[in-house]
């Protein structure tokens, strides 16, 4: 798959008796957009803080670019935006980036470039406190981009944004991914992760429940069929898609087959004299998968 930019092994963090992150082992590969998915309080931010060197693990290990998180070599190649943008309120957006540039050891000239990238050049001289939430978020991304990092760690980058701001931020992240940046993106917005990410890790209550591609996580697609009489319909469908690929439940049949076979299913049932009352693609959303995994659907949360 290429080079691993981020790797954790049994990474854990406890605060007193509370285990925030529990033996998380994940890997992020060069060039991918990795979604770190979990409900609020699942341990996403703590994990990312450990990867940025801000929080020390209680147990386990992590490496970023093959180095210890928080080491100058790792930080030099990593742009970080965790939770919310953090800037000096008395400085302008441009001066805030100049401060970050000095810390990062990059020339001031790059400040203008990243302001252009996030469409803030025209407001660069305005004081940070006058920025809208969306502008602050974009300035945070600009700061993360200053070093032209290979890896971007973005924690809930669309938090608090209006729909247009969220769309712009998603477009920016997609663009970064297409330009070869590796992005580790945490979010509790399932649609966002489904749209943007190549692979996802699902975390709940501090534990990594799954890590795979979005397609693998969603599983194979299928068809939902409602037809009468049921017995005859069952026979026809089993004959068409195979014995093990038809599941009856609640007066419907769930077929494990390509949704593109809907026409053949319709014709076969009609030829057998079965009345078809419903036929639609059965595609699980990431939300359904996520709720199944985290178990919160049972409590109705």
């Amino acid at each position: 798959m290429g080079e691993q930019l981020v790797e954790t092994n049994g990474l854990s963090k406890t605060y007193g008796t509370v285990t925030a992150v529990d033996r998380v082992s994940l890997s992020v590969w060069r060039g991918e957009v990795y979604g770190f998915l979990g409900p609020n309080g699942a341990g996403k931010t703590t994990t990312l803080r450990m990867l940025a060197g801000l929080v020390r693990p209680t147990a386990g290990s992590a490496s970023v670019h093959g180095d210890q998180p928080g080491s100058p070599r790792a930080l030099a190649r990593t742009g970080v935006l965790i939770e919310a943008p953090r800037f000096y309120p008395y400085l302008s957006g441009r001066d805030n980036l100049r401060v970050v540039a000095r810390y990062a050891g990059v020339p001031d000239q790059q400040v203008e470039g990243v302001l252009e990238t996030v469409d803030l050049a025209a407001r660069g001289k305005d004081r940070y406190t006058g920025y809208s939430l969306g502008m602050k978020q974009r300035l945070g991304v600009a700061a993360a981009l200053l070093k032209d990092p290979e890896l971007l760690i973005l924690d809930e980058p669309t938090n608090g944004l209006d729909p247009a701001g969220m769309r712009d931020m998603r477009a920016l992240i997609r663009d970064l991914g297409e330009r070869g940046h590796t992005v580790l993106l945490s979010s509790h917005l399932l649609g966002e992760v489904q749209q943007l990410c190549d692979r996802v890790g699902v975390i709940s209550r501090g534990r990594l429940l799954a890590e795979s591609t979005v397609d693998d996580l969603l599983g194979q697609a299928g068809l939902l069929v409602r037809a009468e009489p049921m017995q005859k319909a069952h026979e026809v469908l089993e004959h068409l898609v195979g014995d093990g690929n038809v599941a009856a439940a609640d007066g419907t049949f769930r077929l494990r087959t390509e949704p593109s076979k809907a026409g053949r299913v319709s014709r076969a049932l009609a030829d057998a004299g079965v009345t078809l009352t419903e036929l639609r693609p059965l595609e699980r959303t990431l939300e359904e998968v996520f709720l199944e995994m985290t178990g919160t659907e049972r409590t109705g949360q």
Partner: protein
Amino acid sequence: MIASFKAELLKLRKRPATWILLGVVLGLTQLFGYILPYSSWATSDQNFQTQGLDPQAVLAGTLPGELVPTSLGGFPVFAGALALILGALATGSEYGWGTMQTALTQRPTRLAVYGGKAAALAASSLAIVIATFALNAVVAGVLATVESRALDYPSAAELARGIGSGWLIMGMWCGLGALLGFAFRGVALPVGLGVVWVLGVEGLVSAVAGSLLTSLQPLRDLLPGVNAGSLVWSLAPGGGSSGETAPGVIDAVTGGRATLTLTLYVAAFLAAGAVLVRRRDVT
């Protein structure tokens, strides 16, 4: 560390609070070092409140010859308190705004970020001391010219010693403020506690040790403010030719011991701050 130092200097230079604190230090130094004494001297023949004071001695304190003690007079107490506020603001607000996270996720190590901040605060403290001496030198020169007195400035060595002592005192208080900012990860509590200590506790302990409970003197002689006051005293014993000593200027320990104690305080504050920054999680 140089990268962090540059970043810190930019932040301090652009921060209005830095200039306000400098302005207050300069303003108070002028008020208590020159404006009030000169006004007192100028009106001494009509002002019964100055009866008993030698008007010439009052004027002497405003002339170039007394530049060092007059400039340093406010450092142990009010300028020290302002330096403490500068230190607390520079470190505590990083936690309040969450910008410590921004600084620590760039390139430098934690200790490099910390070192840059310490160096920038040291440079700012020195700049405040030099600005105080420079403004005072100008004002003293003007007053000497107006009063037809000699422009008899201290020697370069005396000036260097005065500026160095002022820097040590301001750096010590600034370091304490910075340490409190790191320790409490905020501004309000460090500033409150620090100012109460500088303006209240030190004076009370000194007063008690000087009169009611003299057995407390060894403890008093370890206090930072007492050592700062002793260092200023050592440069102009008895208040110099003016015969007036500023609040907090005290003959408690020798100049050498005061210098050593203050240096140890600076080192201790630096070391404690480094431990806090290096070891604690940033959340």
